[in-house]
């Protein structure tokens, strides 16, 4: 990935005492996002507010649209007009965005969507936390497609991972979803925004060659293929239909194989480069706790207590949720007695761990419906059981 230093105009360098929602907006501005179309919804509204407030001084555009369907549609349009784009929402709004999320996947449109999760289903628990949209982010749109999703555990990571989300999104030309939650979104902590020259960003890569060679698509799975900017004088087409490299519809089984294979493999075949994990004391562990987001912090408290009891327990924190870290789980399978998977949902990512672990290691789900974080004692109890 070719990177350049961030544009200082968007970077509010220095230490801040900031909530996760605001840090998402600051991360976007630092990464060069200059267009944000969104619709307010608790608990994500503060991100839109911060972006709207900062937009005039940075030279960005903020539009409050009529709903979430229009928000993501406007973002797709702005992305093809050359802008880095972002929107933010939570479950109910994410459901509405799902149709056009599929369009963004199919048209390989870079964009970042933050889902500040609250309890569901439906309008659920507007003001309370959850991690219930993990599978929706991956499998929401119809048809085969693949996205990247990242999961911050703090306001600091809301900033850092938003910058990373934009970089991945630009390079792989794929929507990147930040799956945060109400707790992290509304929690204030110290956030250090580095100087602009220390923030590496992947700039928008627009095609500038001869007209006859212009191809908005290349089905080679490698990433880094340039966008074509509307208004630059090139003839090209963008459609949700199965298309050729010029973007025009070619509705055949053969072409679908090319397109879909590319959409899946540009992420899957680069998974090793994309996936980031935070591991602690995994070597020699009998039990590994697999967690993400706010739950991973609660889990650390339980892990510390378990270690005091002499249990050899490691921590595997998923910073990248999708693509899932299949390889790492398979490596550990058989070496550890059990995986413990706490999450604020009825058991979603645990299914992925089970799939990779097969019958070689026990997998214990510490599921917990929305509304509150875990009691660390419950996770500790699961670690004890796993160690038996």
């Amino acid at each position, binding site marked *: 990935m070719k990177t350049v230093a961030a544009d200082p105009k968007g970077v509010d360098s220095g*230490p*801040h*005492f900031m909530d996760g929602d605001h840090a998402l907006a600051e991360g976007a501005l630092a990464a060069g996002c200059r267009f944000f179309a969104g619709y307010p919804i608790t*608990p994500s509204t503060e991100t839109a507010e911060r972006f709207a407030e900062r937009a005039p001084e940075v030279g960005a555009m903020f539009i409050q649209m009529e709903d979430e369907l229009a928000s993501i549609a406007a973002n797709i349009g702005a992305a093809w007009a050359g802008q880095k784009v972002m929107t933010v929402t939570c479950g109910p709004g994410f459901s509405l965005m799902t149709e056009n999320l599929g369009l963004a996947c199919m048209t390989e449109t870079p964009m970042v969507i933050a889902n500040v999760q609250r309890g569901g289903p439906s309008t659920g628990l507007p*003001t*309370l936390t959850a991690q219930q949209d993990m599978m929706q982010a991956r499998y929401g749109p119809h048809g085969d497609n693949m996205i990247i999703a990242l999961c911050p555990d703090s306001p600091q990571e809301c900033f850092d991972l938003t910058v990373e989300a934009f970089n991945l999104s630009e390079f792989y030309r794929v929507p990147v979803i930040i799956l945060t939650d*109400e*707790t992290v979104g*509304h*929690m*204030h*902590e*110290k956030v250090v925004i580095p100087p602009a020259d220390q923030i590496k960003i992947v700039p928008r890569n627009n095609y500038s060659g001869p007209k006859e060679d212009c191809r908005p698509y290349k089905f080679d799975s490698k990433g880094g293929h340039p966008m074509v900017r509307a208004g630059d004088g090139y003839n090209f087409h963008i459609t949700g239909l199965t298309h050729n490299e010029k973007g025009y519809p070619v509705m055949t089984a053969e072409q679908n194989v090319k397109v879909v294979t590319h959409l899946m493999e540009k992420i899957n075949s680069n998974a090793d480069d994309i996936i980031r994990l935070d591991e602690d004391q995994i070597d020699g562990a009998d039990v590994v706790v697999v967690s993400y987001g*706010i739950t991973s*912090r*609660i889990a*650390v*408290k339980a892990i510390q207590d378990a270690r005091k009891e002499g249990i050899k327990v490691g921590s595997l924190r998923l910073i990248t949720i999708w693509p899932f870290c299949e390889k790492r789980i398979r490596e550990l399978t058989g070496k550890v007695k059990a995986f413990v998977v706490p999450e604020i949902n009825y058991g979603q990512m645990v299914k992925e761990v089970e799939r990779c672990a097969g019958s070689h290691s026990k997998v214990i789900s510490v599921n917990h419906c929305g509304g509150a*974080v875990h009691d*660390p004692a419950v996770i500790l109890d699961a670690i004890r059981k796993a160690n038996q």
Partner: protein
Amino acid sequence: MSTQEIRFSGFGGQGIIRCALITGKALSLYDDKFATMTQAFGPEARGSACAAQLVVSDERVLYPYITHPGVLVALSQEAYDKYYGELPKGGILIVEEDLVKLRGEHPDLRLMRVPATRFAEELGNRLFTNLVALGFFTAVTNVVTADAMKKALPGLVPERFLKINVKAFDKGYEYGIQMNKNTRGEVL
């Protein structure tokens, strides 16, 4: 201090959330501590009662919510009634002297009373009540330094009111220091 949990409470408009923001910023940016702040965010926060919580530690805060509050600042009757029961023996209870009618002597708690609203009115506006209370809180607890608190104010109070807010903080702080002396210099 390893970990300390603090609840600021009162009614909407008293600047309760601001109290927690200023203290959290002071601790994490200027006092070299880790501070995590959360606030009541349910529909109940839109009524009269209002609370914000801080977990303060020398290490990274893992669990963001408070479970064993050691300090309660209650600037309204409702807030006092709702929260004083959760303080453990030896916990610090700071109340607004004119607004809170105590339900007993609280012999198990370290009770500190401050006429924050009256002092703020003497300075010209009851809007400064929260800064008087913060100054008092800073003086009678060992949570945060006055220096850090003053450094934290710019950006969290309107610039044109910065001086008067510092004055309000000092008023509460001096009153707190005086009170410490009256209790034989015992700092809580």
